[in-house]
């Protein structure tokens, strides 16, 4: 370690990787499409606007489903549902998970051990299975129930990660320095813990967003997600299953939409860490 450089190096700048740009573009496209459907759509998503199982054409870019509804309109509306589920589930998972994780990190060893064991048991259940149990235990399938179920199921993963990250931060000398500086525990969480766990946490939350979209599609595929006439991508896939050989685009189109959003979220998540973390910036 040397001290011989009185001149400062040039300031660092955020690094936008190609993956981040591609991810942000894919996610941005879905967000724009989802927002547009709040005001406008090519057709009424519940109306029969063409022949049954029509192939893609200028009038129906993705063809029609077995009831003659415009598939492109349904996919556009499905983007809104997928994003609503992702945002809602991640908000629930982040609120519950970060709170429990921080409490565990600050708790006495006994309380921490109990919380850690509970989280490990919850994580042992696959997210989808846990969400199915919660939906089954509720009054019935609805979009709200799906969001709640996926959010609760994902919160244990977020809590566990938060606990591990926060404990690592709390062991650092700068936390001791903060205590010596007179910073209280709430201040330490706000000033030091959250900003230091944020870059890793945001990546995980973005990944959870993608998993939530897949989980909602899976629940809808099984009839436990957004009920008809909501145009969930999972329900579209389920409905296209019977006609996949005669009208494959009914399965391919919602599949492309789902995969592109999830890949976009994953790429976006990976690049987000570089933007959120000043220590990963290039000089």
């Amino acid at each position, binding site marked *: 370690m040397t001290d011989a450089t009185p001149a*400062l190096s040039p*300031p660092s700048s955020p690094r936008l990787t190609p993956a981040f740009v591609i991810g942000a573009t894919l996610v941005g496209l879905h967000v724009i499409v989802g927002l547009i459907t709040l005001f406008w759509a090519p057709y009424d998503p519940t109306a029969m606007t063409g022949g049954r199982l029509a192939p893609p054409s200028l009038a129906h870019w993705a063809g029609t489903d077995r009831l003659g509804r415009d598939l492109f309109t349904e996919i556009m509306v499905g983007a809104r549902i997928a994003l609503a589920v992702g945002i809602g589930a991640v908000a629930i998972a982040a609120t519950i998970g970060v709170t429990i994780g921080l409490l565990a990190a600050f708790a006495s060893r006994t309380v921490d051990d109990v919380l850690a064991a509970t989280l490990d048991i919850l994580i042992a259940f696959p997210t989808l299975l846990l969400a199915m149990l919660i939906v089954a235990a509720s009054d019935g399938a609805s979009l709200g129930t799906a969001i709640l179920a996926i959010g609760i199921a994902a919160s244990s993963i977020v809590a566990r990660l938060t606990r591990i990250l926060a404990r690592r931060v709390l062991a650092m000398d700068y936390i001791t320095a903060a205590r010596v500086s007179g910073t209280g525990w709430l201040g330490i969480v706000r000033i030091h813990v959250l900003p*230091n766990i944020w870059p890793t946490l945001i990546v995980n939350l973005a990944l959870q967003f993608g998993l939530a979209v897949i989980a909602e599609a899976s629940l809808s595929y099984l009839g436990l997600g957004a009920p008809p006439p909501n145009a969930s991508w999972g329900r579209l896939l389920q409905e296209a299953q019977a006609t996949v050989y005669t009208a494959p685009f009914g399965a391919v189109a919602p599949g492309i939409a789902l995969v592109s959003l999830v890949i976009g979220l994953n790429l976006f998540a990976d690049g987000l860490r570089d933007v959120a973390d000043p220590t990963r910036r290039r000089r």
Partner: protein
Amino acid sequence: MSLIDLAAVSFAYGRSRKVLHDIDLRIEAGRNLGIVGESGSGKTTILRLLLGLARPTSGRIAFRGEPLDPRDRLFMRGFRRSVQAVFQDPYSSLDPRQKVADIIAEPLRSLNVDTDIDAAVAEALASVDLPSGAAGRYPHEFSGGQRQRIAIARAIVSQPELVLADEVVSALDLTTRIRIVDLLKSLSERTTLVLVSHDIGFVALLCQDLVILEKGRIVEQGSARNILSAPKHPYTQRLLESTPRLPDFT
């Protein structure tokens, strides 16, 4: 005047692992104190007790004659403003997500010190010979020695009476070490230093008084001049003999 007094202080981790035994210590304003001992001798534990980060298992710690009680918020606010610290590792003692200005300003903000924060930060940076442009940078943009200067700036920004430094140069190379020693020497004109180190040579450069610790017990204490010129305890003699010296080629 006595700043901090330790009277018959003992400390144990858990019920059985006693690491400090009946420590009697007095830190006086204007007289730098060096606490010297090998790894595991209890130096850092004493430092934590002196900073109010741990409570003694038995004995009494007083700041300006008042018992040091971490539960007394008002008292601790005054204590924190008067007693600050610099830690060993300049890489882990600075929050990597905070800009240098925020790192240095933290004691002022946390202790609600009524001052112009920007001006105080600039003054602290100037005191440690760092340019004012450093305020807007992150710690990873600095070398180890520069980071230690930032840590020292944070420690002195609230103008404390006492600065405790834990192995503050042990992670630095020789030339950087000399610069930090010079910096601490100039700082000691306006604040009292307590230096915790295994390096008796470094401590002797800056301290008027010495405490020699072995296995959690004080084996010798007094003026640095007396201890260095005529060490009484065999452990102190061994410490002095083990200080690295260049071979004599004359």
